[in-house]
C-alpha cells in the first residue's frame, strides 16, 4: 500500500485532491496542442499533452475498464442458471467479451504511462470509480435481456461518441468495442422479445426487470450538465463530444419506441412526447439515489468489491506461482 500511495498514478487518479498539485503546462505547448485538437487531429501517445488531459483520460479510461470488469459480476450471476444451452453459451460469451474489453482498455491506459496492475489496485482498495449501474442486483433471468437492451444500449450511446474522442488509442478501442456492444444489445433485446411474447409469467418478469433498470440506466450518463464538474474542459479538448444530458436524451428517444414494440411500460408517469422538439420528455431523475450509489451505498457496492477482492486474494498464490515458475525457466535458459 505504501508503494501504491507513493506512485505517480495514485495522484493522477485523485483528481479532486491533486488537480492543483499538477505542474503548470507551458502555454506555448498548450496552444499548439489545442490547435491540433481544433483541426480535428487525433492525439497519439508520443504527442505532448497537458498534464490535465493525460489525467482526465487516465480517469475516464480506467473507470471504463473497471466498469467492464465489475460488470462481469451481475451477468455472471446468471450463467449457471441460463434456461437453455444456447442462452448459456451467449451469456458466457458476453461476459467473456467484457473481460476482453477490460483487458483491452487497461492496456490502452498503459499508453498514458500507467500500469494496469496499479489501476487494478485502485479498484480493489475502493478508491477508483466504475459505472454505478453494476451496483444493482440481477434478480431474474429477464435482467439478462434488459441489461443487454438498456445498459449496453446506454453504453453504446456513450461509446459511439467516444469513438470520435481526440485521444487516438481510446478512440480506436471504442470502435472495436462498440461493434461487440451492438451485438450484445441486439442479443439482449432479442431475449426481451422472446419474453414479451412468452407466457404471462415471462412478460411479468420482463416488466419487473424494466421497472428496476430504467432509472439506473438513465443515471449511467452521469450528473446533469449543470452539475458535471469535468464536462467543460473535456468538451473543449474533444475528449467528450456531447454533454451528459444530450446523450441521455438521445438514449431515451432511441429506447422508448423499442419499449413500445415490446408492449411494456417504463416507470415514469411524466413521460410524454414533445411534438415540437421531437424529444421524449422524461421525469426528474432521483439524484439522491445516484449520489448514494456512487458514494458506495448502492444495493451491491460492497458485494461487487468483495467479489473482486476475493477473486484477487484467492488468485494470489496462482500469480506468485506463475512468476516463480517464469523466473525458474529464465534461470534455466540462462544457464544453458
Amino acid at each position, binding site marked *: 500500500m505504501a508503494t501504491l500511495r507513493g506512485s505517480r498514478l495514485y495522484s493522477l487518479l485523485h483528481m479532486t485532491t491533486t488537480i492543483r498539485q499538477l505542474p503548470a503546462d507551458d502555454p506555448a505547448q498548450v496552444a499548439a496542442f489545442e490547435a491540433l485538437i481544433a483541426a480535428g487531429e487525433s492525439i497519439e501517445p508520443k504527442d505532448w499533452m497537458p498534464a490535465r488531459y493525460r489525467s482526465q483520460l487516465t480517469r475516464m479510461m480506467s473507470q471504463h475498464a473497471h466498469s467492464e*470488469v465489475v460488470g*462481469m*459480476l451481475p451477468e*455472471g450471476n446468471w*450463467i*449457471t*442458471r*441460463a*434456461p*437453455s*444451452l*444456447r*442462452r*448459456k*453459451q451467449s451469456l*458466457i*460469451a458476453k*461476459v*467473456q467479451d467484457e*473481460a*476482453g474489453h*477490460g*483487458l483491452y482498455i*487497461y492496456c490502452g491506459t498503459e499508453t498514458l504511462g500507467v500500469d494496469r496492475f496499479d489501476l487494478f489496485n485502485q479498484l480493489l482498495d475502493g478508491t477508483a470509480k466504475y459505472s454505478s449501474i453494476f451496483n444493482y442486483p440481477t434478480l431474474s*433471468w429477464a435482467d439478462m435481456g434488459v441489461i443487454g437492451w438498456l445498459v449496453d444500449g446506454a453504453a453504446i450511446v456513450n461509446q459511439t461518441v467516444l469513438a470520435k474522442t481526440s485521444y487516438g488509442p481510446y478512440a480506436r478501442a471504442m470502435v472495436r468495442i462498440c461493434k461487440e456492444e451492438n451485438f450484445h444489445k441486439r442479443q439482449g433485446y432479442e*431475449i426481451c422479445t*422472446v419474453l414479451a411474447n*412468452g*407466457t404471462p*409469467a*415471462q412478460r411479468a418478469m420482463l416488466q419487473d426487470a424494466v421497472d428496476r433498470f430504467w432509472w439506473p440506466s438513465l443515471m449511467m450518463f452521469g450528473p446533469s450538465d449543470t452539475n458535471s464538474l469535468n464536462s467543460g474542459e473535456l468538451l473543449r479538448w474533444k475528449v467528450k463530444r456531447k454533454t451528459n444530458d444530450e446523450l441521455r436524451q438521445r438514449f431515451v428517444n432511441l429506447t422508448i419506441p423499442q419499449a413500445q414494440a415490446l408492449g411494456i411500460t417504463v416507470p415514469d408517469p411524466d413521460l410524454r412526447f414533445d411534438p415540437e422538439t421531437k424529444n421524449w420528455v422524461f421525469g426528474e431523475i432521483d439524484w439522491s439515489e445516484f449520489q448514494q450509489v456512487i458514494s458506495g451505498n448502492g444495493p451491491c457496492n460492497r458485494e461487487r468489491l468483495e*467479489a473482486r477482492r*476475493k*477473486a*484477487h486474494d*484467492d*488468485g*494470489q*498464490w*496462482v*500469480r*506468485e*506461482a*506463475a512468476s*516463480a*515458475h517464469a523466473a*525458474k525457466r529464465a534461470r534455466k535458459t540462462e544457464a544453458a
Partner: protein
Amino acid sequence: MASAHDADDVGIAAGEAKAGDRPVAGPSRGPRLGAPLVEYLLRLGDDRLILGHRLSEWCGHGPILEEDIALSNFALDLIGQAASILRLAGEVEGAGRDEDALAYFRDGVQYRNCLLVEQPRGDFGDTIVRQFLFDAYSVLLWEALLGAPHAGLAAIAAKAIKEDRYHLRHSSEWVVRLGDGTEESHVRVQGSLDRLWRYTGELFEADAIDQGVAGEGIVVDHRALKARWDQLVDEVLDRATLVRPADGPTQRGGRVGRHTEHLGHLLATMQSVARAHPGARW
C-alpha cells in the same frame, strides 16, 4: 425394530399382500439403461456439459483476467460440444427430446457423466488438475472416434479434437507452472491431484454399453487409451515435479447414474429457471 412393527407403521399388516399379487422382484441388480448408442452419446455429452458448467462458474472470479477469458473459452467449447452431442442423442433416441430437454429435464440419476467432472470447482489448482486429467483423456478419445462409422459422431470428433488439443496444452502448462512454481503452489496442486486421482479410473472402464456400440462399429480400445493417457500424464507430472498418486480403489458409478452428491446441487441451480417455467421458450 421388528419388521412386523415397521409394516404396521405404514398401515400394512404383515402378510396382508399376497405373493403373486404384484411382482416385487426386479429384473436385475444393475441400473436400467437405454439403447447403447443413446447411452453412449449421453455419456459423451454429459461429461462436457457438466465440466463446461463447472468452468463457467469461474467467469468473473479468475486469478487473472486472462484466465477468466481462457476458462470461459473452454466452457464455451465444452458446452457447444455437449449441445451437438445431446442433439444427436435425442435424434437417435427418437422420443422427441432435443438438447435442452435432455440438459434441463433429466434428473441426476439420468445423467451419465463421469464423477470427475461433477466435483466442485474448488480452487484454481483443483480446476486446472481436473481439466488436465480430463483433457488428456478427451483428446485421446476423440482421436479414437475420428474414424467412427457414425457420420454425426465422427464430425463432432473432428471439431472437438481441435478444441480439446488447445485445452490440453493450456491445462498442461498450468499444471507445470503450479507444480513447479512456489512451495505453496506445489503443495496445493499435489493435494488436488491426490484428491481427484480416485475418479480417473472410471474414465477407462468399458461395460455393456461399449460392447453394444462396438456392434455398430464404434470401437475404442480402452486399454490402449489408458496406456497412452498414463504416458501423457506421467510426462507432464514429471515436468511439474509432481508425484503420480498410487492407483487406489476407484470411485465409479457416474456412467450408470450413480453420482456423488455434488451433481444434484449443480443441476438444481442449472435447471431452476427452465423447470420453473415448463413449456416456455427462451
